[in-house]
């Protein structure tokens, strides 16, 4: 019985091979960028006049916060592509994002709290950024909760795609309503950290870390997407070669 068939849109074997080849091209630059960023941030950058060396937490907090938001947007866009053009590759990418995004949102929260401690004297401060980050974590937990409660892969993809799209529309709204809410009760918190005011010695390492984390995310995504693709292309012939089954025969 012929079970050789290719999905109409987006060719999974091509994506699988491409992902395999590209992963090192993202992994190694990520490592180098982060190394440079760390050296710049921890050693070379001068201490902040107000927060002293405490500000160096920004070199992990900002990239984590950036990743938490960017990963959600990548997840929602690939979900939309999957839903509209029914592309397995898009669903594989979308499925790979959730855990990465959730873990970095949690990291952004933790580092934000640790950074806040010396500033505010408490670990938790209803600062608009931290609050938005917390709500974003709930969105991720909701997404993961929904995806894990549906056993059929196809249905789980489509249901979580709808949730991701509704979520991504709400993320900016939640963010600005939190800022609006926060500005009612008190002046904007002291942790005002306008990037442009940072001197180059402080700013460059931050940009390096942001680029490094982004490259790191892409490498992770390519690895995970290959696995998710194999789970979804259950019977296509190319999976044999991809899974290394031909060797064992």
């Amino acid at each position: 019985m012929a079970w050789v068939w290719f999905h109409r849109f987006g060719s999974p074997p091509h994506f699988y091979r491409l992902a395999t080849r590209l992963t090192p091209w993202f992994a190694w630059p990520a490592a180098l960028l982060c190394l440079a960023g760390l050296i710049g941030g921890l050693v070379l950058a001068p201490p902040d006049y107000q927060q002293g060396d405490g500000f160096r937490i920004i070199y992990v907090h900002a990239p984590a916060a950036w990743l938490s938001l960017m990963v959600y947007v990548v997840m929602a866009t690939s979900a939309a592509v999957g839903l509209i053009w029914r592309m397995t590759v898009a669903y594989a990418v979308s499925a790979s994002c959730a855990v990465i995004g959730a873990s970095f949102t949690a990291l952004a929260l933790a580092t934000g709290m640790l950074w806040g401690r010396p500033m505010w004297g408490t670990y938790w401060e209803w600062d608009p950024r931290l609050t938005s980050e917390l709500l974003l974590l709930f969105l991720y937990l909701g997404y993961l909760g929904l995806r894990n409660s549906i056993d059929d892969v196809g249905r789980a993809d489509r249901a979580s795609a709808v949730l991701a799209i509704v979520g991504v529309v709400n993320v900016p709204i939640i963010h600005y309503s939190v800022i609006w809410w926060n500005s009612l009760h008190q002046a904007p918190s002291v942790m005002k950290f306008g990037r442009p005011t940072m001197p180059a010695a402080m700013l460059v390492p931050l940009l390096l870390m942001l680029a490094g984390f982004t490259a790191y995310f892409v490498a992770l995504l390519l690895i995970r997407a290959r696995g998710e693709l194999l789970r979804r292309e259950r019977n296509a012939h190319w999976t044999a070669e991809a899974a290394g089954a031909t060797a064992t025969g």
Partner: protein
Amino acid sequence: MLKFLAMGGYARYVWPCYVLTAAVVGLNIRWALRSLHSARAAARRRIAAVRAAS
């Protein structure tokens, strides 16, 4: 070196952040690789079963 580690008195907050970051970065790498390997293993099992059947 010690002055560097002291982080101007903020060591208690800076280093935990970096340790946490390293943990999350490492864990994600491990999870990603494990997810790929388990998917490939499952694919191999499925293909072996199909070959045995046909």
